[in-house]
């Protein structure tokens, strides 16, 4: 169904249940939907599984959500950063679960969820510790591991602009995971700088077509 505009982030994230899997866009701070994450933290669901490339920077946005004790598990490629002290402390004290996924698999598994792919054979990680427990197969002389989709209940993403059809464009490398996460979630919430009239975004330059966007909010 076409996207609905919400007056503020709190209303845009309403209804996310305890235990939900939430995909959160961003690569470090670039593209991180901080206002939506803050609203999610205020709205109070617990025991969340967060799918995101990193596990929070400093004490804002995703890090603040972790600090508030709302997250049971993080699925990410790179939790450890110079300023990931909130996650580090939770992890070392055994208060958060971590699933480390190679960055390309994270992106491709989200894409697979959005594209109806049941599983795919991928060359990344063969012969490494991350191959443990995975089905391996040799195809045309090359070894692959079988990887499964990552589906999310909700995706929180940040885009540059939307039009009223929900079509999105992003800004530079802040695009990163937003477009794939939008396809992988049952409900995609996008915070944008501006919502324009239909027709104001060049149809050739749309990155996320409106079909993948359920809720829009200007921040």
């Amino acid at each position: 169904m076409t996207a609905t505009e919400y007056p503020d982030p709190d209303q845009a994230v309403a209804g996310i249940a305890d235990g939900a899997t939430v995909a959160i866009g961003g690569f470090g701070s670039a593209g991180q939907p901080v206002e939506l994450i803050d609203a999610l933290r205020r709205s109070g669901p617990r025991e969340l599984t967060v799918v995101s490339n990193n596990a929070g920077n400093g004490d804002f946005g995703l890090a603040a959500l972790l600090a508030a004790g709302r997250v049971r598990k993080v699925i990410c490629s790179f939790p450890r950063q110079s300023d990931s002290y909130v996650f580090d402390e939770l992890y070392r004290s055994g208060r958060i679960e971590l699933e480390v996924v190679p960055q390309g698999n994270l992106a491709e598994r989200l894409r697979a969820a959005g594209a109806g792919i049941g599983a795919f054979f991928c060359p990344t990680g063969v012969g490494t510790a991350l191959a443990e427990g995975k089905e391996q197969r040799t195809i045309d002389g090359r070894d692959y591991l079988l990887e499964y989709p990552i589906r999310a209940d909700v995706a929180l993403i940040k885009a540059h602009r939307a039009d009223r059809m929900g079509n999105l464009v992003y800004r530079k490398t802040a695009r990163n995971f937003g477009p794939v996460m939008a396809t992988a979630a049952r409900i995609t919430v996008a915070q944008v700088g501006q919502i324009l009239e239909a027709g104001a975004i060049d149809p050739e330059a749309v990155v996320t077509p409106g079909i993948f966007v359920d809720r829009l909010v200007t921040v």
Partner: protein
Amino acid sequence: MGLSKDELAAAVARDIPAGAYVNLGIGQPTTVADNLHPESGVVLHTENGMLGMGRAAVGEEIDPDLINAGKIAVTEPPGAAYFHHADSFAMMRGGHLDVCVLGAFQVSARGDLANWHTGEPGAIPAVGGAMDLAIGAKQVFVMMSLFTRDGRPKLVPECGYPLTGRRCVNRVYTECAVFEIEADGVRVRETYGISLTELRDRLEVDLS
């Protein structure tokens, strides 16, 4: 008695929810578009790479680079988006379309669909996007005449033609009746100028 083709298209259009993303198959399903009111906000997908597809182009609007899946020139209303074929079919196969409307040779009581190939020895097989459409949308509506020209039913216990998809049809619109394909059987939702008894007589499918 029975619905005309135009009335049938209108009946399908009435059941498409406001704001839905919809793919209309080649042929008769295309006529559903003419019965959708712009204020319903229904957004049309064409699998050759466009969302927000407009009506058939006329005169100077015709642009050979802007066509639908039936290779008919169409228009680009405000708010459209273009994408490549893998993205377009990912959209479809990933279950993002709300409704897909397809024609059919046969539909079985279980919702199996046969609409791509007559299976005749001389026929050149050509599947196009039919199998992807059949399994992709949240709801698959079939639009067809209930009987062949020589009077054989097309809603059948088992499809005789090669299948396009298994258990994928949710609803069948015909000039005689609308059928819901449910887990426990086929339910007649509406009839047009024919009684349920008469339908039961003419079909070999259990109807409730």
